[in-house]
């Protein structure tokens, strides 16, 4: 039998706390007798209840504890409440939970459950407070708490949206096949305020074989659909698609390609760099660094923290027909804090790996309003994904910030932003960290300011 009763644990703790207090007083008396000073009434708080709760928590982890059933439920409501709060927090990655604990004045060390216990304990399992914490600290919010837009490059921009709309008009309420058991329906379009909006529905089937008994074989198919919105602005390099997932977004881009005079590029094309401190670096890395050093270090945006950095080997460096037994790493994703100041990330950049994904906490300011938002940017083969989480902010305000992030991405991609001095300085700093092999004590490149 390895389980123990909670009543026994409480008795053990009460004994320790009672006898411990006596030991402390005895030690004090002995020291005072020999001339030492004891000071009372300096406003120290009564921490005994907290100490007992902490001891209970620490010891409950040591063995399986059995608790008595409650009158109207199987499991203690308090325990259920607490565990649900922990489960909700567990959706946040451990490094971010450690940051949360530290920000709350708690110890950051220990296993996942220890950190969760500490946070939930400090919040007294208050659901509302914990929900606020989750939303404030999540760096990769779920789809229902973020705006996601995928940017597909056009072969050429246009300033005549009416002409584009006229070309698409005959295809409304019609569909294109865009893949195996995949179709894109054009539902309608509208041109207003310098923007062409194309609404559509992506329809697809998932199918599999089924066998019942010895002889009955059949195909089982499930029908799915997802709405899409595609936007084209005058003289812009990208078409913007809001849809659930990359496949639905691609389907919308393909439909545009089929139905209009505009064409979507098959892949992204980043300019290379011939000289300077960026020489030899992957063009995708250079794009990300330009974005970080100019658009996201401006009057409107400030990087508070870079929490995820994803790298991918250049496709041209992945040897075709490579020996399949030869071990190799094609992509790596770091999670942590102020990642651009870390040696591993700087090494990968300097070695020419593609910096293809980032998640950061960004402060956006406009007028009197300042929002702290989780933002993610990922470079795919044929598009760039921009995701802006709501954080604790109203979605309508976040939508404006999301558009500004998209605008920044477009400007950098189109070469319409000139911040060469800043990106060169950042590149030199990255080379310096890589060469020194030492991660600085304090973040200095980006995100050295906390929210």
């Amino acid at each position, binding site marked *: 039998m390895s389980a123990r009763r909670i009543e026994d644990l409480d008795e053990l703790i009460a004994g320790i706390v009672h006898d411990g207090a006596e030991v402390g007083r005895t*030690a*004090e008396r002995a020291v005072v007798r020999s001339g030492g000073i004891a000071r009372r009434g300096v406003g120290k708080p009564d*921490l005994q209840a907290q100490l007992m709760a*902490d001891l209970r928590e620490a010891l409950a*982890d040591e*063995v399986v504890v059995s608790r008595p059933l409650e009158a109207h439920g199987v499991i203690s409501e308090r325990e259920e409440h607490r565990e649900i709060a922990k489960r909700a927090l567990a959706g946040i990655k451990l490094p971010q939970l450690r940051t949360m604990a530290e920000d709350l004045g708690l110890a950051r060390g220990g296993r996942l459950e220890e950190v969760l216990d500490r946070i939930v304990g400090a919040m007294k399992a208050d659901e509302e407070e914990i929900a606020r914490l989750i939303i404030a600290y999540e760096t990769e919010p779920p789809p229902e708490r973020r705006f996601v837009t995928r940017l597909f490059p056009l072969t050429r921009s246009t300033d005549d949206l009416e002409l584009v709309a006229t070309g698409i008009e005959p295809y409304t309420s019609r569909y294109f096949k865009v893949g195996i058991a995949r179709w894109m329906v054009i539902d309608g379009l509208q041109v207003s305020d310098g923007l062409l909006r194309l609404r559509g529905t992506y329809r697809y089937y998932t199918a599999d074989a089924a066998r019942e008994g010895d002889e009955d074989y059949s195909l089982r198919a499930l029908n799915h659909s997802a709405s899409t919105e595609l936007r084209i602005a005058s003289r812009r390099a990208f078409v913007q698609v809001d849809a659930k997932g990359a496949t639905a977004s691609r389907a919308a881009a393909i439909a545009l390609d089929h139905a209009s005079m505009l064409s979507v590029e098959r892949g992204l094309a980043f300019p290379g760099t011939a000289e300077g401190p960026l020489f030899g670096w992957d063009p995708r890395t250079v794009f990300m660094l330009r974005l970080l050093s100019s658009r996201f270090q401006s009057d409107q945006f400030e990087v508070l923290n870079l929490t995820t950095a994803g790298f991918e080997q250049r496709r041209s460096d992945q040897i075709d027909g490579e020996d399949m037994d030869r071990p190799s790493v094609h992509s790596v994703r770091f999670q942590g804090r102020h990642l651009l100041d870390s040696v591993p990330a700087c090494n990968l950049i300097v070695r020419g790996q593609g910096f293809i994904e980032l998640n950061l906490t960004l402060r956006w300011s406009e007028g009197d309003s300042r929002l702290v938002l989780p933002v993610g940017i990922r470079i795919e083969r044929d598009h760039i994904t921009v995701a802006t989480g709501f954080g604790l902010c109203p979605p309508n305000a976040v939508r404006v910030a999301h558009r500004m992030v998209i605008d920044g991405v477009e400007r950098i991609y189109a070469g319409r932003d000139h911040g060469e001095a800043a990106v060169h300085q950042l590149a030199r700093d990255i080379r310096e960290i890589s060469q020194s092999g030492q991660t600085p004590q304090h973040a200095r490149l980006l995100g050295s300011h906390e929210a």
Partner: protein
Amino acid sequence: MARRILSPADAELRDRYKLKGWVQKPTERRQSYFRWCDTVLSRLATWSRSEDPADVAVILGIQSALMSDDTFTEHVSRKGGDFLTEDANWDRIYRVGSGVIYHEYLVACEKEIWPEEAAA
């Protein structure tokens, strides 16, 4: 070498508040706390899955004594400054003080100074 009990941040507080010196002298106080460490460890051993209880539980047990010892209050208040105006920081300083006691105890056991000192 005794295992590390304090995090780097806690070690910083230990040094700032000169807690190592407070634990080591006078001997009478040190012995009271070391005897309490023996007791806490033996009581926790009845509950723990393994022979060695988790450090955090031992430290909390030591804290139960430290919290009622106002010579500790005097020591940290004298060095305290603004740090101790926050309630949460009192808990932290007790935790660090208890961690220092436990570390010193482990060192003494390893060097076989304790429990020989008690027997003498």
